[in-house]
């Protein structure tokens, strides 16, 4: 099984994922960059300017270590202080505006998803339940080598469709995390979590539990196989209702 090699590119920290939701993430990154880089550079510049311009060069005549002069003892500048209180407030308000709209898009749940799959996490493995009762299962017991992606459980989903995932934990807190979806959601006992994914690019993407869940946390991995809908329908029709496919074991 070949992994998609295109892990979330850094693209100056402004990544592209493989779902329709990634548009909003990318947009937020861009907005954050537009504000934070200039502000960061401004503050950094001011700090460095102070250090180089006002460092004690030891040529003054005043007292104190280094013999530097005693500078003017000013302490307040109300207009300036007001400015650097109000301007950041405005920036934060604008950022919140972008954030609020993006969040509603990413978090929205469709009433008519193409397929609903239940994702169950447990110590230590994953089970993906399809509507017809077919289950894709994999546990760390079959995962002999961290360098091998052979025996990982596979979540097969179609692209260009709304896939609704219902995530459930069977014991402790786990997290369903696929880096290339730019998304994760916790599996917490007692909390019902549902979210939509709209993949756009077929491929095999690595996923992993992202919340410390005990000894074999690092090995609790899975793969997401995004297929074109026709291919997915063929695969899905081949899976008998209530059958179980266990990664690393011959098909039963």
């Amino acid at each position, binding site marked *: 099984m070949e992994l998609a090699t295109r892990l979330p590119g850094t693209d100056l920290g402004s990544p592209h994922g493989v779902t329709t939701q990634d548009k909003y993430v990318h947009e937020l990154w861009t907005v954050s960059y537009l504000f934070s880089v200039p502000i960061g550079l401004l503050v950094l510049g*001011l700090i460095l300017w102070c250090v180089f311009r006002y460092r004690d060069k030891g040529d003054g005549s005043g007292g104190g270590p280094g013999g530097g002069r*005693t500078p003017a003892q000013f302490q307040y500048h109300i207009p300036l202080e007001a400015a650097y209180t109000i301007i950041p407030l405005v920036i934060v308000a604008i950022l919140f505006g972008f954030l609020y709209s993006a*969040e509603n898009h990413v978090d929205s749940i469709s009433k008519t998803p193409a397929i609903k799959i239940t994702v169950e996490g447990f110590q230590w493995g994953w089970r993906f339940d399809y509507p017809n009762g077919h289950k894709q299962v994999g546990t760390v017991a079959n995962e002999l080598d961290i360098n091998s992606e052979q025996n990982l459980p596979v979540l097969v989903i179609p692209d260009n469709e709304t896939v609704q995932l219902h995530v459930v934990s069977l014991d402790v807190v786990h997290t369903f995390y696929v880096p290339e979806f730019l998304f994760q959601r916790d599996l917490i006992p007692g909390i019902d979590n549902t979210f939509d994914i709209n993949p756009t690019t077929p491929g095999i993407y690595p996923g992993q539990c992202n919340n410390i869940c005990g000894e074999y946390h690092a090995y609790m991995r899975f793969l997401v196989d995004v297929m074109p809908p026709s291919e997915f329908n063929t695969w899905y029709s081949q899976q008998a209702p209530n059958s179980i496919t266990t990664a690393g074991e011959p098909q039963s």
Partner: protein
Amino acid sequence: MTLLEERPQEHPEPSERALMEIIPGPRPHGLVKYITSTDHKQIGLNYLVTSFIGFLFAGLLAEGIRTQLIVPNNHFVTENVYNQLFTMHGTIMLFVFLGPFAFAGLGNYLVPLMIGAPDMAFPRFNSLSYWLYLGGFLLMSAGFLTNNGAANFGWFGYAPLTEAIHSPGPGADLWIIGVGLTGLSGIFTAVNIITTIFTLRAPGMVMFRMPIFVWNQMVTMFLLLLAFPVLTSAFALLWIDRHLGGHFFDQNDGGQPILWQNLFWFFGHPEVYILALPYFGIVTEVLATMSKKPVFGYKGMIGATLSIGALSMGVWAHHMYTTGAVLLPFFAAMSLLIAVPTGIKFFNWIGTMWRGTITLNTAVLFCLGFLVMFLFGGITGVILAQPVLDFQLHNTYFIVAHFHYVMFGGSAFAAFAGIYYWYPKMTGRLLSEKLGKLSFTVMFIGFNLCFFPQHDLGLRGMPRRIETYSAHMGWNFLNMLSSIGAYIAGVGVLITVCNLFVSYRKGEIAGDNPWDGQTLEWACSSPPPDHNFEALPPIRSERPLWDANHPDQLTKVGH
């Protein structure tokens, strides 16, 4: 309070400087002095030394973590031991080093000196706090000596992984009790320091003349007073679950695992500012003294501290964005707002240096390191405060990089600034500038080499707390860099440790006021005598000592 009321209200003015009488009698020495002392300076030193040992120990654990991750599929330690390493690294760094070093160590030593008090308000209570803290440190570390090892579920111990069925053995219990004891000790210290600040200030030392360090200390103590009882009660619930068959966090019997996350982070976020505010205070004091200027925007600085303190009590669930069970817009708005007072502080620090005469010694270098790295950590913090981006970055190495830029590059560098700045006051000798500057350079390079690549690792999807990783994920080179950086940073820390020892015997004699200090701690001898002051200058501004030493450059009062 009643004793204070007996003070005469009207009195002729005999002299500007007054003497304090010192209780006569023999003073214990050696081990007896260490155990029985109720002097705030001795207890402060005890705290400083103990917490620094905690720092070195937790740092050693961190080197173990980085050694395990240096190459993919590494087997330096087992999965279980790895989990213990990062759990205890986090726990000890936060509960033993970063918090107590500043609020209990420097707080104890400096707050009474800075406000002109003879001691803390409750000296024996103070001693009790220290011993509880030491006991907590020893108990939580004792987990390593038990059969199943120390706690291994991460420093925020999400239930139900912490329940007896998933984490059997005494390691987890020792963690609960140990952290609980340090928490209890923190509450006692908070009560003590708040009372000291409220009732033992020298005449004329009104609230708005206290140094920024004392203000920050006070706000920190109020946060602690609110946060730690919540933690302690969460621990009590967890202990009942583990030992008395409770089901508070057990979903199968009607409990709510997410309750733990709410309780823990309601403590945890104020805790983050408990770990940051005193260090802001250190940086403020060092920059003002070394620039030979008053703190720029003194009142704005206090306002910023107060607003950070207030806001930090309403942002706990930004650690829980991905749980899908919190109000995202509310917490996002509150978290973004914290950026504003933090920004004010940055501009005030710049204003303090502006047109000053900055002595570029080691203490200032560490402060500048703090400014640069905390700035970076602050900016990544604004990114992480946005739920949609947090969905991508939560619990990845991006977070690890972010909070190490804030906690290590920020707070710990400020702690080193504090060490270099106040060591002469505590020992009477200056630390070696040569070793200090070398230590700073090595630490700065090592730190950035260690943690800067981790931002990229997080963007490439590397989860935190994984014991090993596949070679096919594109994480190999960055992890190698990061581990090398961790070793370099470790060497930098060790240089300062050598400096502490060498200068203790051979350092240059400091004198009472080596930096032309502005606040009262420099008005007494180095180290200060019992009950601190033989004489106090009149307090007419927030820089009484500067005013006494520079009568031609008085601090303007009330702007």
